[in-house]
């Protein structure tokens, strides 16, 4: 605020520069303030990278079993090597040697300091095919000598590397959630929109259907449907049908929200104004109504994804969703069903941590998006 002008002509108007920020930019600015949501967003981007390039990031092929390393303990990372003439600094681990107590038959592993396995970044390791097409063999972080086994997060009951399996599971678990949500989204917006926009008989029919679907408790419905999937189906087919089953109920929530918004928006003055202006119905829907609740949909979607992930995990855990040889967090948790197994190898519970972390970050992100989208919040 500058100082005052003493004499002035009331008719003189200063040209004021008006900056207009688009809706998206405003949302972004508000979102930026929410630091937890920003951090969650960054974390999720990281997860997406892991999900897209698991072959590169994971040190091993997740399906390779190795009976020499069943229930392998976690490798301790060392950085300082004092064994030689000079002190050298490089990341390495000690080789695992399995031994079985002759009396109790208990399994133990010792880490042999004499045999050091050097680790490196971007090393040449076991070959893979990115997206199943592009051959490659560079791994982000793995032993320099590709014949050596390294267990950052331990080994599972058949000697497979838990860390690699976790990484590969990210892709499946997260995408299962995504597909289900996309399906719910399409169904929800379509049916909710039709219901809200046209009203009348169509609305009633769709509403009753929604109520019906919602009265059936979710878990029994999913379990029942999933149990009906023949056990001899290939994993991909099972994966596809599981997401459909999960989406079957998910669209109802979104449809109700969309319908509610359409119903109230229909009566809004700006819609009436557009109609009076001669704008076609389709354009009214697309250009005028949709933007005003798009932000809410974004927030709803980001909160629906973790729910889907949880549901898939639960189903697979119970053996009714994805099955071996598919790899998802739920499938990984199957090996953790027995308390004694878990007592022996608690790292088998790590997929649970992964699930919880992902769900939490999506929740924070969703909260942040919802706060940013709602101008009156």
């Amino acid at each position, binding site marked *: 605020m500058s100082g005052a002008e003493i004499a002035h002509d009331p008719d003189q108007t200063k040209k004021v520069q008006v900056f207009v920020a688009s809706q998206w930019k405003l949302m972004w600015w508000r979102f930026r303030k929410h630091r937890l949501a920003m951090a969650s967003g960054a974390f999720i981007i990281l997860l997406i990278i892991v999900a897209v390039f698991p072959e590169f990031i994971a040190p091993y092929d997740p399906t390779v079993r190795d009976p020499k390393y069943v229930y392998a303990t976690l490798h301790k990372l060392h950085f300082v090597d004092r064994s030689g003439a000079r002190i050298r600094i490089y990341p390495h681990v000690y080789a695992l040697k399995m031994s079985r107590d002759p009396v109790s038959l208990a399994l133990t592993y010792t880490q042999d300091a004499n045999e050091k396995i050097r680790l490196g970044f971007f090393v040449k390791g076991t070959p893979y095919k990115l997206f199943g097409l592009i051959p490659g063999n560079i791994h982000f972080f793995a032993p320099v000598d590709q014949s050596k086994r390294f267990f950052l997060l331990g080994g599972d009951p058949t000697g497979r590397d838990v860390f690699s399996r976790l990484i590969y599971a990210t892709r499946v678990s997260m995408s299962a959630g995504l597909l289900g949500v996309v399906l719910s989204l399409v169904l929800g917006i379509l049916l909710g929109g039709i219901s809200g926009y046209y009203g009348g008989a169509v609305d009633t029919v769709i509403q009753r259907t929604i109520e019906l679907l919602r*009265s059936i*408790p979710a878990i029994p419905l999913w*379990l029942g449907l999933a149990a*009906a999937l023949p056990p001899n189906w290939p994993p991909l087919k099972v994966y596809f049908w599981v997401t459909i089953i999960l989406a079957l109920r998910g669209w109802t929530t979104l449809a109700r929200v969309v319908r509610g918004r359409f119903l109230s928006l229909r009566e809004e003055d700006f819609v009436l104004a557009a109609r009076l202006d001669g704008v076609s119905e389709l354009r009214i829907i697309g250009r005028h109504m949709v933007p005003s609740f798009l932000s809410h949909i974004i927030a709803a979607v980001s909160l629906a994804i973790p729910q889907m992930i949880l549901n898939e*995990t639960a189903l697979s855990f119970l053996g009714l969703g994805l099955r071996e040889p598919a790899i998802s967090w739920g499938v990984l948790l199957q090996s953790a069903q027995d308390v004694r197994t878990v007592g022996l190898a608690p790292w088998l519970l790590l997929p649970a941590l992964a699930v919880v972390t992902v769900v939490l970050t999506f929740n924070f992100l969703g909260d942040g998006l919802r706060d940013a989208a709602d101008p009156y919040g």
Partner: protein
Amino acid sequence: MLQYIMRRIVIMIPTLIAISMISFLIIQLPPGDFLTSVIARLEQQGVVLDKAAAASLRARYGLGQPMHIQYFKWITGILQGDFGQSFFWQREVSGLIWDRLGYTLVISLGTLLFTWIIAFPIGILSAVKQYSLLDYVATFFGFVGMAIPGFLLALVLMWISFAYLGVSVGGLFSPEMEEAPWSLVKFIDLLSHLWIPMVILGLSGTASLIRIMRANLLDELHKPYVVFARARGVSETKLLLKYPVRVALNPFVSTLGWMLPTLFSGSLIVATILALPTTGPLFLEALRSQDMYLAGAFVLMLSALTIVGTLISDILLAWLDPRVRYERG
């Protein structure tokens, strides 16, 4: 008010019918003429169904006849209390479910109560003392509680108590008490085991209720009618409970409708992990072994409970909120 209840009950009936059809559909889903494939599988597992029993089952359920006749036979049976036969257990389904239903109800209702008793005051305090330490702790707990699904929590808790406390948690009774007749000692034993599934089941519900209560109350706390009440001399506590809490209660109560069935469903998985003698593990086993009459009965029963639960919460809501009662549509 009575009109409202009547209206809702009348609407309930077609929904129930539709659900029974869907449950039946689920029963029919597994491919093949299902009795023969089930018999074959059972024989594989060493359970032999004698020919006479198989024939009587066929007749009873009209297998081999068109779908709608089978459905009618099933439904009329249910209305007479006959839920069908479990192939795996070779027993009447109703007997099987009945045994377990009691415990399921106890756990679910107990958890519901526990959830409410905890969530209600914490939610209120959290909103009234916004940004205080209690608020941050409650909010954090709310987030975390909602992110951890019951079955994961059950797994982790079991592991912790096994690995670090040497205690094996599971079941509703200590091994010696299982078959013992009911007594005060047995009751206390039950309570000492009951809190674990209740905590696990109740955690996410409590967390979400706290958040809902807090959010709703925050919305209401600064509204003019609250300030007006304060401006005419009503005391703070009385004011809080009579006005904003009462209004904030409405969305809270409407969540009640789905809480009970959610608890039933949620307890399914948790009960499996903790090996509780409730309906959950039985249902799961039924699904895994495609013991479909048992499974179908479960789906029907749980769905019916959902509808009843929704009805109860709708009635409660109408009783609490006059706006709902007078709404025209």
